[in-house]
């Protein structure tokens, strides 16, 4: 599973992108966040308040209950500020 980070989420995690292989019990975005938060102090800081983080699965915005599976591209980022 490819995980991407943007903006301050990227800065806190310390990498823009990583390949991860979460265990089978990680089935949705919320579960992936909880699992990623345990990977490093940077990850923990990035996901300290999950309500501040938005996600996309395969380049579509996805709520916490959205399923994730091996092969997906999952991205985490702050609320967007375009325009």
């Amino acid at each position, binding site marked *: 599973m490819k995980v991407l980070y943007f903006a301050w989420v990227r800065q806190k995690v310390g990498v823009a992108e990583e390949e991860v292989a979460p265990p089978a019990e990680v089935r949705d975005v919320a579960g992936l966040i909880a699992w990623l938060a345990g990977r490093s102090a940077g990850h923990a800081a990035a996901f300290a308040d999950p309500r501040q983080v938005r996600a996309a699965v395969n380049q579509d915005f996805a709520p916490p209950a959205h399923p994730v599976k091996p092969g997906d591209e999952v991205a985490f980022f*702050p609320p967007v500020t375009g325009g």
Partner: protein
Amino acid sequence: MPAVPRVLVQAGPFDIGAEAARLQAGRTDVGGLASFLGICRGDGGLVAMELEHYPGMTEKALTRIAEEACARWPLTGCTVIHRHGRLVPGDPIVLVLTASAHRVAALESCAFLIDWLKTKAPFWKREEFAGGAGRWVEAKAEDDAAADRWAR
């Protein structure tokens, strides 16, 4: 058939005059062309803005919303150009152009697109101030409210 939008996500600048001309070229059914140009402001000592985006998703999301505008209003054409990278005060950031036989369709769809871009387009802005301080721009509740006007 709805018009096919022109969507660009690019680091370089764009030319509003050329883009307006492109939507009219060779046709006489365009009665109104609305546009919105977003520009980097220099408030509070801002020296630069870094616009991060999500290559792939950003283009996809912009194309989808532009297609929705073309389906929802009788547009003859629609152009959305959004820059990324480092911009300084005075630099254009985003251009939305909508063309239609009638002014209301052009004006409404232009407002719709810019409200959407503010709240749903995968861009993140980091402001840099004199002296080196920097901060990520936070999403605004008022922008969400503006975008929600268009929900149906």
